C-alpha cells in the first residue's frame, strides 16, 4: 500500500493538490482566493491525467525523424483531454473574474459574506 503510494507519487501529489484546491474553493471568503483554489483544483486534475498518459522512456506523440512505431510515443489522448480541460477552465476563470470585478466595483469588497450583508441593507433602505 505505502509502496504503491511512493511509486505513483505523481497521482498522490495530484490528489493532495485537488484537496487543497477543493477546500479553498469552498471555504475561502475572499473571491480571488476562491478562484485561485478553482485553478489549483483543475491543475491537479490535469497533472493526474498527464501522469496517467505518460509512459517512461517514450516521447511526445509527434512524428520526428521518421520513427512511426507506436512503441516510441506516449498515449496522446490524455494530453488532448488536458488541452480541452485547460480551455474550459480558462473560460470559467475568466467568467468568475469578470463577475468579481462587477461585484468589487459595486461594493468595494471581495468578501462574499459582506457583500450579502450589504445587499440586504441596500434592499431595506
Amino acid at each position: 500500500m505505502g509502496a504503491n503510494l511512493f511509486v505513483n507519487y505523481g497521482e498522490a501529489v495530484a490528489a493532495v493538490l485537488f484537496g487543497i484546491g477543493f477546500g479553498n474553493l469552498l471555504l475561502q471568503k475572499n473571491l480571488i482566493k476562491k478562484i485561485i483554489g478553482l485553478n489549483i483544483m483543475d491543475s491537479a486534475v490535469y497533472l493526474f491525467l498527464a501522469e496517467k498518459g505518460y509512459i517512461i522512456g517514450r516521447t511526445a506523440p509527434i512524428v520526428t525523424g521518421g520513427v512511426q512505431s507506436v512503441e516510441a510515443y506516449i498515449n496522446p489522448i490524455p494530453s488532448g483531454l488536458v488541452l480541452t480541460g485547460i480551455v474550459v477552465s480558462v473560460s470559467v476563470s475568466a467568467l468568475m473574474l469578470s463577475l468579481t470585478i462587477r461585484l468589487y466595483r459595486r461594493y468595494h469588497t471581495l468578501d462574499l459574506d459582506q457583500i450579502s450583508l450589504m445587499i440586504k441593507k441596500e434592499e431595506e433602505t
Partner: protein
Amino acid sequence: MDFICNFPFFSILISLFSGTICSVLPGKAAKWVNTFVIVLIGAMSAALLWYLLGTGESFVYMMGHFPAPWGNEIRAGVLEAATALFFCIVMLLSMWGGRKKLMEEVEPSKHNLYYILVNLLLSSLLALIYTNDLFTAYVFVEINTIAACGLIMIRQIGRTLEAAVRYMIMSLVGSGMLLIGICMMYDLTGHLLMSNIQESVTAIIEEGTYVIPLVMAIALMVIGLAIKSALFPFHAWLPDAYGYSTISSAAILSSLVSKGYIFLLIKIIYRVVGFRIFHDTHIINVLFVFGLMAMIFGSLSAIKENDIRRMIAFSSVAQIGYIYVGIGLGTQVGMLASVYHIFAHAAGKALLFIAAIGLTDVSGFSRKFIDLTGAGYRNKIAGIGFTVGSLSMVGVPVFAGFVSKLLFAQAAVNNVGKMLPTLIALGISTILNAIYFMKTVIRIYTPRPDAPYESVAIGKEKLYAVSIVLFIALNIMLGMSSQPVVDAIHAGLEMFG
C-alpha cells in the same frame, strides 16, 4: 442509414451556430432567429421521435471518421428524442411568457446577448441528451453552466450578481468532482465512449480487482452531478438565482438546466455503470436519503417564505428531491417515475414562474403575499395559470403532478425495504405542498375592497396569455393522457439498458 439519423447532430449544430449568428444581429432579428431555431429543433426532434417509435431501436451516429473505440459518437433513442422535444416546447413557451419582462428588465443593447445565451444553453442541453462520450458530456456541462450563469446575471442588480457568483462556485465544485470522476473512470477502463466503458466496468466487477477505485469514481461523478442539480444540502444558491433573475431565465433554469444534469446522471447510471452494478454500490442509498430530506426540508423552507418567487424556488428543491428518491429506489419503476417527474415538474414549474410574474406585476411589482391579495382577479389568465400549476404540483388528478406521485407510490410499494420512508415522506411532502400552494391560491383569490392596483385585460398581453394557455394545455395533456408518455419513457429506458 436514413437521412433522419443526422437530426440529432443537426440540432446541436444549428443551435450552436445560431448562437454565433445572434451576436452580430440586432435584438429584434436575434429574437426571430431564436424562435425559429427552437421551433425547427422541436420539429426535428418530433420527427426523430416518430421515426424511433416506428423502428423501435436506438441508433449510434459516428462523428468524424474514426470508428467506435477511438472516435466520438452521438446516440439517439426514444427517451432522448422525447426529452429534446419536450425541452424545446418548454423553452419556447418560457421565452414567450417572459418576453415583455425581458424587454423591461434587460438593457436594449443586451437583448441579442440574451438570445445567444439561450441558444448556447439549448445546444449544450441537446449535447448532454445525445452524446455517447463522457468527456464531451463534461465539456457541455461546463458550457451549460456558463450559459446559465449568463442568464442569471443578465439582469444587473446586486442580488443577481451575488446569486450568479454563488451559483458558479457551487457548480464549479460539482464539475470539479465530475471531472476527476471521469478521469478516474478513463484511467480504470481506458475508454471514453459510454458503451465501451460499460464493458470494461462489467469486467472489472467480475474480476474483483480495482473495485474500490471504481466505486470511488462512480461516487465522484454522481455526487458532482447531484451538487450541480441542487440536491438538498447544496441548494443555497437556488432561491436567489431563481427568485431575482428575469422571469424567462428563472423558468428555464428551474425546469431545464437542472434537469439536463439529472438526465446525464440517468444516462451514466444506465449506459456507463450499468443499472445492476450501480444498484449494488450503495451510492443509491445516499441519493435516496438526501432526496427524502430535500422533499421535506425544501417544502418547509417554502412555507416559511414570504416572497412568492422564492417560495416557488424552494418548491423546486423539494421536487428535485422527488426525482432523486425515484432514482434512489433502485427499481425500473422508480426510474420511470423520476423521468416522468422531470417532465411533469418542468411543465408545472415553468408555468408557476410565468404566472407569478403576471401576479406580481398587477400588485405594484411587490412579491410579498400581503400585496398579492386579489391579484387573481386583476390578471385573470395569470391567476388561472398559477392555480393550475399549484394543483399540478400538489398532485390533484387531471394534472401532470398527480401521475408522477402515483408512479412514485407504485415504485415505493415495489421496493419493500424503502417502502415506508418513501410513502411517509411522500405524504408529508404532499401535505406541505398543499399548505403553501393553496395558501397562495386562496390569497390571490381573496377579494380586496380598497383596490389600490389596476387590472390587466387578457387581450392586452397576447403572447403572455398564449404561453400560459399552452402551458396549461401541456399540464393537462401530461396528466390526462399519461399512458403514451409513460410507454415512451419505458421504451426509452429499455433502449438504455
